[in-house]
């Protein structure tokens, strides 16, 4: 029997829903950043800093970061449980992914609230 104790939401249906909700957040954030950077002048340091100093932008960025963490975990978990059959190799891969996700979240919070 296949156990799914390493899945994100402990339930396939819950993971399915989380994957879609986080996808929408990530699309919104990507569209926003691409529009900001592609359809305007290169921002000055003051403008760039000002953008990320705003509470709304910090919350939006943190939301995107947490969405990325959940979305990447669900996606990489699905792929690795399908294609990495040896338990040891899968454990190492998923551990690296989990650790890197944790580092991203801490690092991102440090950047956002360290401005």
């Amino acid at each position: 029997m296949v156990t799914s104790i390493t899945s994100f939401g402990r339930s396939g249906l819950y993971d399915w829903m989380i994957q879609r909700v986080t996808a929408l957040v990530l699309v919104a954030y990507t569209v926003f950043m691409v529009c900001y950077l592609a359809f305007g002048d290169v921002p000055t340091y003051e403008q760039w800093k000002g953008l990320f100093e705003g509470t709304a932008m910090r919350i939006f960025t943190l939301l995107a970061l947490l969405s990325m963490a959940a979305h990447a975990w669900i996606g990489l978990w699905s792929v690795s449980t399908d294609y990495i059959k040896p338990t040891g190799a899968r454990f190492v891969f998923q551990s690296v992914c989990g650790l890197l996700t944790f580092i991203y979240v801490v690092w991102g919070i440090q950047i956002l609230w360290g401005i």
Partner: protein
Amino acid sequence: MFFGAIFMLYALGLSLESEAGFNEAVAMFEGSFFAKLIAWGLISALGYHCLAGIKHLVMDAGYCEELETGRLAAKVTLIAGAVAVLLAGVWVW
């Protein structure tokens, strides 16, 4: 993309750390071939993943599930993905 996010966070952190860091990040995106290559690769992957994801959501909603429309949606996604990769290259260079 997941491992490439290291570069995105590094660039974000550098650009917000100080004015000197910001200038360094801008100079990197304007001058370094490798920085441009990494940016192009990441933006391309993100663009294609977004488009394929939107197609996935459209199919979740019950559209394009038949063989004919499904094939068409797949082709449209691939072509739009190729266009996105080209546009990303134009943007970066």
